[in-house]
């Protein structure tokens, strides 16, 4: 575990894997909930957790670098189920990349259990991990200028669901009616870091 100073009041804690980042993030949330850590933002990402708004980042840095990455927390919460019609425009390409028929590609995706590793790109956009590494797919060579809201998409090791229409370069494998982001709802985001997710196939229209 490395703790890199970010300006005068933030730390970027770097670990060696996404799993470690998720475990560290869960442990930092626990410490904040128990009043052991005062910090404005705890932002997990692919291999790091950013702590922003710290009074004494140097002290926390020496404390963290002297300790081991905490073990992964027990999976307490039930998985959120997201209904998906696996009829995306890139499903055939993804299936070809995996060397399976389209229907089988949908089944592989729906059989996996996902965890929101981190959020970014847009409010409520989660980067979900859970597919075995052999199912990593490249981004599209040319991004789309408009990806419809509710698109279920793949890029690299991640699955994501577009909360609203936006440009995007991920491979679109399906659509959901689930509302990923509604700022009038509490909580506004359906997915937050650590949330477990299953995609449930529904019949296409």
């Amino acid at each position, binding site marked *: 575990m490395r703790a890199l100073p970010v300006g005068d*009041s933030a730390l970027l804690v770097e670990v060696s894997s996404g799993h470690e980042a998720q475990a560290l993030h869960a442990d930092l949330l626990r410490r904040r909930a128990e009043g052991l850590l005062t910090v404005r933002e705890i932002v997990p*990402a692919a291999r790091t957790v950013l702590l922003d708004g710290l009074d004494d980042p140097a002290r926390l840095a020496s404390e963290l670098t002297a300790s081991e990455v905490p073990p992964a927390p027990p999976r307490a919460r039930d998985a959120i189920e997201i209904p998906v019609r696996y009829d995306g425009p890139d499903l055939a390409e993804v299936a070809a990349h995996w060397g399976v028929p389209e229907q089988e590609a949908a089944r592989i995706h729906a059989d996996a259990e996902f965890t929101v590793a981190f959020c970014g790109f847009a409010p409520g956009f989660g980067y979900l991990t859970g597919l075995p590494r052999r199912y990593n797919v490249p981004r599209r060579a040319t991004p789309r200028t408009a990806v419809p809201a509710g698109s279920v998409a793949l890029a690299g090791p991640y699955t994501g669901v577009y909360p609203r229409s936006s440009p995007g370069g991920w491979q679109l494998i399906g659509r959901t009616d689930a509302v990923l982001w509604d700022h009038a709802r509490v909580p506004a*985001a359906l997915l937050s870091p650590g949330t477990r997710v299953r995609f449930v196939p529904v019949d296409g229209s």
Partner: protein
Amino acid sequence: MTDRALVVVRAGALTTVQDRGRPGHAHLGVPRSGALDGPTAALVNRLVGNPPEAAVLETTVNGCAVRPRSAVTVAVGGAPCPVSVDGRPVAWGAPVRVSAGALLDVGAVASGVRGYVAVSGGIAVEPVLGSRSTDLLSGLGPAPLADGTVLPLGTPADVHARVDVAPQPAPPAELVLRVTPGPRDDWFTPEALRTFTSRTYRVSSASNRIGLRTEGPALDRAVPGELPSEGMVLGAVQVPPDGRPVVFLADHPTTGGYPVIAVVHPHDLPATAQAAPGTPLRFINKRHH
């Protein structure tokens, strides 16, 4: 019943509602947003008797014009500009009474970029995640003003402003930003690190509320390849593939994949709100001063 609202007569190039933003939601991909020049937003609020967190208008280059439906007190600060009420010049940087139905015109800036307009009671659009700020990256908060937009106003505090005029810093002729190196300074060549803190850049016209873009010497990487996405802070100086540093401002993305060479001291960020394209810009290493 009083009709406390502002009618937008001339929206200007880009006028948004801003308060102190919505920090604390970065882990959901929500940018902090908020006034680019927070101290000036707080100051104009103080001039009209508002609390510092009240929402104000942030204008860009050519101001805006609004018509209050009831009498209000306003104050205009930030980039110096002419201010008029029904065509009569009134004070800039001081409280001004505007009667119901009169036209407040905030003119084009003489220098700088962004004006701040506080109205007694504050702009009272519905908050989103605790803030009324327009976030141009994520689209949260009210849309930028358009001609004809009607903005509700809050109830003025029952206190009088304790200041009549207040000194405001002039827009910078040269922007000097103190930086702390890292977290990814080791991704750059020693030559690039020297270049970064010794050469003069210029503010690019592609700058916006998301980032202050620069023109100048490219910074070469020592480590090729992509950085896995990581969290980004306000003031992070990210270096995209073209090698020109970008300073992350209020509407910056919460994560990013280009290395951050340094972070700008928070006290130096408000001045970036007023740095017009072409303004010379230097980054100086805080550890050496």
